[in-house]
């Protein structure tokens, strides 16, 4: 069967069981858009290519399947670079197809030409410039294989226009031919035994669970390990939901804005079981002062992560789930673990949890006089309260998506995650504008789930044009803007570290008019200015299932995220909420 390169490309995507492509056509990718008309694959037309990339990420995070995006050459390709970089940092499987100028024009500074494979070299797991239409099925098969195996990540296929129009004889390859690609899977037996011995001897162990738990679908195995051994679990920003927050052994999020107990447990630990986590600077704080007394068992599928930041006592280069299962087997083989040994440690942790929960100053709902808007006085609605109410009023398996900044930290802190893959955010790259498109992608992947985005007003303005996509494609996402009229996290740093000299952080609560924006995009727009309006607004939003909803929550702009470990400081110097500081010095182990 003779096909054009373009037809072969679309057919190859069908062979990979792609159900949706997020994209936007243009000159160089035109030939590939023609067979899309006849393909069963759904195409979602975005308004900006960055949106296509983040939608594909949201889809991938919510479903565990690779996200697919397709854009044209030049600016189309450069616009999706941010999403590629984001996916690379957070190990999200994406397959991005870009158009390219004809092979004869490559290198001539042709219209809409860019060196796409060169530009994306450092932000993809691998990329290809197709030079022969006959290679297309093989490359597509390899692209999906590479994106989804080992440590997942984004890949890119750059297709010159003449390649897309030239003819090839269709085939589907039997397999991949990648002599240099051998992702790890099974753990080394001896390393597992060594880890089990450290577990048996530890008195203050902590499981440091990272995003690798979710990638390797190891949530159940992790729970079994924690319950078998009685070891408490911290879940990093990328791992929220991999272990239920309601579980008695869950300590929640560690790191710069993690809770006191999670941060301090790691500092005081004598053993860290790092499972699919990468000792990110936002978790470790000052590396030389991080968990100084802990021995480390580091499980990672990416060998380069092991020893990159902290040299482990036991290195296990393997798939996280297989390693955890191996560990469970090894521990079980030597009889039931002595959980009683951990009682003093658990008691200490419980005491900290009681002393240092996440907290904030509750606003007084009756104090209507100081409410926002026309009165010109700042709103007193607390962003944390909005998150708490959202959590209380939505199903337990609701998918929560966030952008980057204060709202992201409050969402992670005050939402209670009970299921894996229910938290989608930009962790490593910290991409503002992630939430709206990622929520759309998540809802496309999981139409059965309620999908809420918690966004900041700064983030929202970066990609909110995609609400038009959501309306047009009937994707009923719900967006809660925590509108504090500021680039809030930057403001917080200027408050704390720049003597309250606020430089270029004020955005205005009214410009743009977020309700007007929502309505212009075919969404329902709601505004909430006081605590008592929160619940009715969320309930109303939950009932709308035929279009997107945007709620403009006017929140207290002075609110700050606590606890906080200042950048570069030791985690021992964690700054708790002002109301908890009096007791700070009295804490003992």
């Amino acid at each position, binding site marked *: 069967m003779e096909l054009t390169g373009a037809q072969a490309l679309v057919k190859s995507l069908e062979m990979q069981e792609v159900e949706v492509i997020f994209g936007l056509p243009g000159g160089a990718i035109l030939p590939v858009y023609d067979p899309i008309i006849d393909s069963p694959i759904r195409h979602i037309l975005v308004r900006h290519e960055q949106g296509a990339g983040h939608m594909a990420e949201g889809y991938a995070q919510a479903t565990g399947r690779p996200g697919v995006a397709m854009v044209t050459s030049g600016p189309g390709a450069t616009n999706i670079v941010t999403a590629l970089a984001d996916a690379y940092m957070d190990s999200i499987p994406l397959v991005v197809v870009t158009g390219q100028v004809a092979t004869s024009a490559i290198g001539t500074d042709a219209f809409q030409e860019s060196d796409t494979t060169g530009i994306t070299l*450092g932000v993809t797991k691998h990329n290809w*410039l197709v030079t022969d239409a006959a290679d297309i099925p093989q490359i597509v098969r390899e692209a999906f294989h590479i994106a989804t195996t080992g440590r997942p990540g984004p890949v890119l296929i750059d297709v010159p226009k003449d390649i897309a129009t030239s003819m090839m004889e269709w085939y589907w390859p039997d397999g991949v031919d990648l002599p*240099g690609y051998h992702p790890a899977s099974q753990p080394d037996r001896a390393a597992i035994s060594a880890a089990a011995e450290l577990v048996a001897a530890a008195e203050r162990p902590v499981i440091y669970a990272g995003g690798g738990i979710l990638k390797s679908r190891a949530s159940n195995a992790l729970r079994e390990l924690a319950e078998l051994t009685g070891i408490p679990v911290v879940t990093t920003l990328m791992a929220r939901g991999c272990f239920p927050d309601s579980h008695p052994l869950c300590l929640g999020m560690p790191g710069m804005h993690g809770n006191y107990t999670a941060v301090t447990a790691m500092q005081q630990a004598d053993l860290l079981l790092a499972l699919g986590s990468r000792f990110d600077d936002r978790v470790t704080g000052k590396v030389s002062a991080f968990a100084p007394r802990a021995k480390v068992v580091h499980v990672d599928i990416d060998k380069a992560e092991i*020893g990159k930041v902290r040299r482990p006592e036991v290195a296990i280069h393997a798939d996280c789930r297989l390693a955890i299962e191996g560990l469970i087997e090894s521990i079980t083989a030597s009889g039931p673990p002595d959980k009683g040994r951990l009682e003093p440690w658990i008691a200490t942790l419980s005491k900290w949890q009681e002393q240092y929960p996440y907290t904030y100053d509750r606003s007084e709902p009756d104090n209507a006089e100081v409410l926002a808007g026309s009165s010109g006085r700042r709103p007193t609605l607390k962003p944390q309260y909005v998150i708490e109410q959202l959590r209380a009023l939505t199903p337990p398996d609701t998918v929560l998506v966030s952008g980057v900044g204060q709202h992201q930290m409050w969402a992670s802190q005050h939402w209670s995650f009970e299921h894996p893959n229910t938290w989608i955010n930009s962790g490593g790259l910290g991409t503002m504008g992630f939430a709206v498109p990622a929520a759309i992608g998540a809802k496309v992947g999981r139409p059965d789930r309620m999908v809420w985005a918690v966004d900041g007003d700064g983030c929202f303005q970066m990609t909110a044009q995609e609400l038009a996509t959501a309306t047009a494609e009937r994707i009923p996402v719900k967006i809660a803007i925590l509108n504090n009229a500021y680039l809030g996290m930057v403001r917080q740093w200027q408050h704390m570290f720049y003597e309250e000299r606020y430089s270029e952080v004020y955005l205005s609560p009214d410009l743009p008019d977020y309700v007007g924006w929502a309505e212009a995009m075919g969404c329902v727009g709601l505004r909430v200015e006081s605590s008592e309006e929160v619940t009715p607004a969320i309930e109303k939003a939950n009932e709308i299932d035929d279009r997107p909803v945007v709620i403009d929550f006017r929140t207290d702009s002075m609110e700050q995220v606590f606890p906080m470990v200042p950048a570069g400081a030791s985690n021992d110097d964690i700054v708790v909420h002002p109301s908890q500081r009096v007791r700070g010095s009295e804490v003992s182990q």
Partner: protein
Amino acid sequence: MTQDYRPGGPRHRLLSVLVENKAGVLARVAGLFSRRGYNIFSLAVAPTDNERFSRISIVVDVESSPLEQVVAQLDKLINVVEIGELHPDEAREAELLLVSVTANANERSQVIQLVGVFAGRIVDVGHDAITVMVAGAPELLDDFESLMRPYGIAGIQRTGRIALPKLDSQASSMTTAGIA
């Protein structure tokens, strides 16, 4: 130049990297080094007897990053098939040097004599300069270079080190089984 900076000094480690012979492979390797802040002292690329693969010999400066990390990151490149470290004791190393030396009629015979000692070859002769090619162990070339310097070097180019394991040694990671 201190001893440490010399090829073969403790800061310098030689990696022999077998890569798929595909467009852009060198850019992937070089790009990895630059974005991770690793330093390359020298680099040489050439095809192998199997047209599917090329061999890159890289002398890495391990001051900035541990070799283990460099190797682990290199190994993540899809087109990198195999990485081996070659210890100087277990390898045959060679490098090629081309140098144009300013030498007038009086000095020329001295230079030619030294070229003979180093088993080099004169590849070009001008009125007041000659161009010499010398191949051999990198340390040998260092010596030759320093001997030429007093005469005045008009131009110099070295290829960077290439290496293969000694035939009687069994450098573990250097087997090429399964690749032919």
